[in-house]
């Protein structure tokens, strides 16, 4: 765990410091009125005059205190900027994971139980399309249909302008209306993937001895499937969920950009355009930490779900 955390900071630092020129150039080079002394002073403030390894050590000490430095764009602490954006990204990601589970597990089970039936064939085609459809294109199609053509769903932001004036119930309603399209777009790849995994997993469980035993002792089919097969088939899904967190987070950059949702993905996009290196480094590290955290949670969930792992140790 610790070496991986260390590695994450090292790679993030290395990436940003491949940059030709200094981040302060944006303020200095482009402004002829800034004198040499002022430039050096600015470099000193940001610690850019020291050798690289000193900069790295200084920086990593600060990271320990969750101090990612200040944004070059507006001089606010990076951690504050990320902290105000992160909950939104987490919200749409958690909702997506929820939707993915709700949809893909029943679809996977149903396709596996009636392999080759019309439902299986249709869902297989849908899965292939879901895998291949570019999320930003889907987003544009949905925006033009529901937002522009029908005009029934909002297409940007997460709340309406008059959000503050609404009561709690209206607030929830307003928020959900704004989230329908983005969450759907973010989920689509996951739904395709997990339906496929669930189907595969159910199919491989079906032929196990304990399923034959359950059937042989005369258990009703429902009990065989939901108590014996499903529980075992869900195990690999937990691991795959942990592994799919980076993909979900990656997806939120595009989704947040298309729907103008002020989350961490949009902040990343804006910072890349402005070469706001401190913010970029901060987000890079936070996103990698989230991935690690997701893997850890998946491991813990796995131990709970699978008694064999608990008893072995």
């Amino acid at each position: 765990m610790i070496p991986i955390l260390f590695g994450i900071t090292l790679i993030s630092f290395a990436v940003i410091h491949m940059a030709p020129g200094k981040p302060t150039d944006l303020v200095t080079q482009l402004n002829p009125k800034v004198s040499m002394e002022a430039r050096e002073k600015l470099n000193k403030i940001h610690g850019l005059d020291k050798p690289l390894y000193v900069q790295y050590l200084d920086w990593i000490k600060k990271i320990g205190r969750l101090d990612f430095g200040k944004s070059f764009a507006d001089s606010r602490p990076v951690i504050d900027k990320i902290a105000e954006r992160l909950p939104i990204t987490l919200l749409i990601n958690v909702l997506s994971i929820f939707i993915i589970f709700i949809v893909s597990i029943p679809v996977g089970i149903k396709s596996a139980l009636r392999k080759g039936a019309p439902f299986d064939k249709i869902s297989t085609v849908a899965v292939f399309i879901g895998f291949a459809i570019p999320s930003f294109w889907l987003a544009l199609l949905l925006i033009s249909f529901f937002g522009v053509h029908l005009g029934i769903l909002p297409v940007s932001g997460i709340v309406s302008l008059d959000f503050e004036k609404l009561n709690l119930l209206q607030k929830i309603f307003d928020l959900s209306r704004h989230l329908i399209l983005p969450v759907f777009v973010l989920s689509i790849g996951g739904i395709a993937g997990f339906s496929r995994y669930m189907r595969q997993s159910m199919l491989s469980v079906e032929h196990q001895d304990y399923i034959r035993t359950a059937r042989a002792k005369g258990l009703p089919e429902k009990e065989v499937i939901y108590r014996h097969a499903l529980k075992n088939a869900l195990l690999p899904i937990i691991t795959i969920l942990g592994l799919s967190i980076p993909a979900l987070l990656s997806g939120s950059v595009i989704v947040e950009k298309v729907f103008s949702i002020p989350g961490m993905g949009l902040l990343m996009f804006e910072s890349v355009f402005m070469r706001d290196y401190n913010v970029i480094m901060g987000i890079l590290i936070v996103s990698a930490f989230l991935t690690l955290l997701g893997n850890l949670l998946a491991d813990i969930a796995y131990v709970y779900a699978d008694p064999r792992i608990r008893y072995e140790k």
Partner: protein
Amino acid sequence: MKNKLMLTGVIIIILLILAAVFAPKIAKYDPTYINIKEALLPPSEEHLMGTDMLGRDLFSRMLFGSRIALTIGIVAVGLAAVIGVALGSIAGYFGGKIDSVIMRFADIMLCFPAFFLILAVIAVVGPSIFNIMIIIGLTSWMGMARLIRAEILTLKTRDYVLCSRVLGASNFFIITKHLIPNGIGPVLVSFVFGVAGAILMEAGLSFLGLGVQPPDPSWGNILMEGKAVLGVGWWVILFPGLAILITVLAFNLLGEGLRDALNPRIK
């Protein structure tokens, strides 16, 4: 059934490659030629896919876009495959400290959500076709390294490897002549899926304005420009999206088919 799907994929890919290679011959117009008088014409015989907001022929732009998509997809994943196979086979063959250093490095790289890492590098080196290829390549070798390593771990205990070593073959010879050719199967499957992924990635980056830069036509940046005419020019949005969908679908079908062909258990 499966074979037919794979065949469909292969046919689409061949057509795409032909379209890309002969783009200058097929296209009636210069893909970057601006003609405001003909802006936003719907599809017709003159302009098969209509024209965009600057009056450029969309069909020509789509054809040249296929060059960019395929080049970036294949070169980027080719680079990833070279890195992945090299590192993975060294790790698997030598084991011990070398193995744990290389694979730990891969683990760390896998912690970064790909899109965030790629965007960060683009912020540093700037967006261009060349940079995008290199960056996607450098950030997507980890899966292939794991695959070839797993293969080599089982292959290196085989008798023919021992035999070769007894005969005095060098490590390099054993890795390149015995182990990699025998263990390359899963990497090949991963390569095909990887091309699909890289094409999606390039389109996504270009759509954000951080990939292929206008006036070079990429399916992603055509879509980005189409966003501005969302209500008026449906064709500017429809065709590039469909092209990405079909291309990615074709590579995925080929990948599925290859995987089944290489894994006799599923048959």
